């Protein structure tokens, strides 16, 4: 009997696995916190009730429904889960550097839920990250938006299934180095980058037209047309033209940013976000007018030529010009303190607390098309929350607890030190990584086999 029970349970479990993404949702009441809603101001000693993964009530003196745990956050700060619009955490592979356009590949296929970087990001209050393809190709692969449900074993369980599709584009030094200088094919210059994009979209238009012609002819009498060959690469580009995918474009210089704005105008593309965008400040009015904004570093510059003429005031200038602006990490290290990176906009440009916090919450949510679900503390939104011991924009702030869908995945006091979910059975001694910059910055990971030794030496600068 007992055996049968376990057997049935096993089948039930299997069934759960097949029904995909059975993500856990929790209920919790956080009491007496200074609530930084980001979109609706700050509330002093307020309570936030979460039921079944959703924020259901915000106010004072809320009593916990039976079975819901209450957490006393007196003297602490509660903010929305931090969203990183540019990350490579939890990806086993980053670049498919085999062609200037590889729109057919998907980061969903290489998500690794066991990577310790997910927990480390949670310990920095980051609940959502945009796991991007690298910057080797002009048109890279399709990205995955992740929810940091640490402990999940199925990659599908950490993918935010209700997030829209996004794709990586890349301009400038990286694609021209890999393809032009590395392989002797277009693009070798920023002119070539534009040509690759325009050619790609024009080919996609022809592809779309071929299918439309076939679809129209299919049901007519005496039709002799056969369907065109299916092409995932062109279909994805056609989906971009149809507004189904948001472009996230790795870019640095003002000229190339302006170029892509013009290309987008010509092809009637509205869903465009610039990534890195170090010289975005030079074309801030254009970015504000024609795009979904820019996702930038707080202060990185000078690691390569195209970021030499940068300024740490970039985010502030973009913000003041009305562009949607977010601060991202692109680094397994920086993702651990994005709250601090956002705070640098106060040193460099004097942004307000709300403006600075928006850069790591609601603004990246907008750029990922998930602002109706996450990015602020509002009734009806998914309960991704972080408790800090002091104001999150203070350099001394220490994240205390991080929740995704109302489930606590990080607790500064209760968590054990070793958080590995998977330990290699063949590893005799644990490896020690020292100043492992390539571990932190993976924009150009997996490109080395495409380049000669000389270029590999310069892969240490990878953004």
């Amino acid at each position, binding site marked *: 009997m007992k055996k049968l029970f376990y057997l049935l349970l096993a089948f039930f479990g299997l069934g759960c696995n097949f029904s995909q993404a059975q993500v856990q949702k929790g209920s919790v009441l956080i009491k007496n916190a200074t609530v930084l809603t980001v979109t609706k101001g700050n509330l002093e000693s307020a309570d936030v009730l979460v039921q079944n993964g959703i924020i259901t009530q915000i106010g004072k003196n809320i009593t916990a429904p039976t079975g819901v745990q209450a957490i006393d956050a007196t003297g602490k700060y509660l903010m929305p889960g931090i969203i990183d619009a540019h990350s490579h955490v939890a990806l086993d592979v980053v670049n498919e550097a085999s062609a200037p356009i590889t729109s057919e590949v998907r980061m969903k296929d290489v998500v690794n839920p066991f990577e*310790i970087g997910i927990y*480390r990001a949670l*310990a920095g209050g980051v609940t959502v990250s945009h796991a991007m393809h690298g910057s080797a190709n002009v048109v890279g692969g399709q990205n995955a938006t992740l929810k940091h449900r640490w402990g999940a074993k199925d990659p599908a369980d950490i993918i935010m299934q209700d997030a829209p599709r996004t794709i990586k584009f890349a301009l400038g*030094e990286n694609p021209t180095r890999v393809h032009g200088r590395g392989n002797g094919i277009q693009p070798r210059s920023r002119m070539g980058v534009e040509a690759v994009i325009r050619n790609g979209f024009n080919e996609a238009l022809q592809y779309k037209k071929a299918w439309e012609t076939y679809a129209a002819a299919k049901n007519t009498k005496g039709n002799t047309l056969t369907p065109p060959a299916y092409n995932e690469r062109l279909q994805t580009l056609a989906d971009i033209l149809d507004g189904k995918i948001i472009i996230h474009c790795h870019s640095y210089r003002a000229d190339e940013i302006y170029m892509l704005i013009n290309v987008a105008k010509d092809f009637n593309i509205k869903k465009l976000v610039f990534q890195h965008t170090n010289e975005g*400040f*030079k074309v*801030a*009015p254009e970015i504000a*007018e024609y795009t979904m904004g820019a996702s930038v570093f707080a*202060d*990185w*510059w*000078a*690691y*390569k*030529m195209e970021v*030499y*003429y*940068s*300024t*740490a*005031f970039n985010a*502030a*200038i973009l913000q*003041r*010009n009305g562009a949607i602006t977010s601060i991202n990490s692109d680094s397994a*290290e920086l993702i*651990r*303190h994005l709250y*601090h990176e956002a*705070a640098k906009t*106060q*040193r*460099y440009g004097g942004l307000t607390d709300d403006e600075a916090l928006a850069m790591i919450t609601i603004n990246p949510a907008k750029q990922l098309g998930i602002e109706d679900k996450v990015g602020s503390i509002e009734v009806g939104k998914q309960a991704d929350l972080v408790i800090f011991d002091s104001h999150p*924009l*203070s*350099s*001394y702030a*220490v994240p205390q607890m991080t929740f995704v869908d109302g489930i606590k995945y990080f607790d500064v006091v209760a968590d054990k*030190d*070793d*958080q*590995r979910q998977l330990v290699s059975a063949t590893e*005799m001694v*644990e*490896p*020690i*990584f*020292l*100043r*492992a*910059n*390539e*571990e*932190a910055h993976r924009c150009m*990971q997996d490109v*080395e086999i495409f380049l000669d030794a000389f270029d590999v030496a*310069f892969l*240490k*600068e990878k953004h």
Partner: protein
Amino acid sequence: MNRILVLFCMTWIALLPSVGMAQIDGEFVKPRTGKFLLKNATVVTVTKGTLSNASVLLENGKIIGVGASLPSEGAEIIDCSGLFIYPGMIDGGTRLGLVEVSSVPETVDYSDVGNVTPNMQALTTVNPNSEAIGVTRVSGVTTVLTVPSGGLFPGTAALINLNGYTPDQMYGGFKAVAMTFPSSGRRGRFDRRSEEDIKEDGEKALKEANEIWDNAKSYLELKKSGAELSYFPEMEQLSKVLSGELPLLIEVNAASDILSAIQWVEGKNIKVIFTGVAEGWRVAEQIAKAKIPVVTGPVQDLPTRQSDRYDTPYANAGKLAKAGVKVALRTDEEENVRNLPFHAAFAAAYGLGKEEAWKAVTINPAEIFGVADQYGSVEVGKKANLIVSTGDPFETRSQILHVFIDGYRIPLSNRHIRLYQEFLERSPGLKAN
């Protein structure tokens, strides 16, 4: 007539500069020295407590007065009411001035060809006009150790002040030979050596280090005995470490390597400073017992092992200090040395505490480098390296309002600031053709 002619000529001479400068617009503000009285501030001396409503008097590059009422004759008075005065921060390990754009090899000068090049001088290659220097000093970092890296003995590091037009004007009076202790760590994903290979490489490198050391020893003995030596600049420089003239900066990070390094140093009777020391917290007691001072950092870094608690790099400095190790901080950066105060804040928040964190970026590095008579606190007689801020400079919301280096008042401008000034409100703005 004559008078008219003189007047005419005088007018022309007076106009000359403006005529000659016709294509140049605007004014360039240069660093300038003089006598300055910084009045009515809260002075955080670091070594002698915090003084409220106090003033600081600077002249000839030195601090000549700290206290409540100081004479103001001949001094330019800067009202610091409601503001804070701190000593300028010292970064204990950078590549500042040695590199301009990291990915452009023509601008990278911190490492040369060869494994044993202790005679490579960081000070020679410091570019006083590096953009990164202007970007760094407005953050309150006024002095840095700039260090060559690469091989076993990559070169000689130098302490520099972030003001001056020649390396000699910048020189801060401390040099040390850098050594990269043979490492048992991996450099990252690219490093796919087997465990045996890593061990073997480490042993081979240590053997080489020992051979070189023995050679330097013989060189020094021969030199002392007055022997006629052929030109051997590498040994000449290393022998200065053996004789105690120059300290040895040993870059060492993995716990087992730190223990080997302690052992290696034992009995050598040389001045040693450990740098990096990422896993120092695992062997903090042993480092303290060996009485070796440490320059650790970056603080904002990844843990060295997957199994480590997420905050080990943040907490490292605090744990070292608690064990009794003298700790200074470094960014190990080039263009972003300006983040030193934020690294210090993280160290403070994760166990070091604010007061010790301040020491770790001021008086501690000064003492470790043997220049505490000149640097590291706001005290009479010390070099006038100090900053004035609206609040705690470790906080991003505080603004640094004045920076003095070597008694020079530094203009609060650099390319980042100028670009902000130009582009905040671009003109023309958005304009369709």
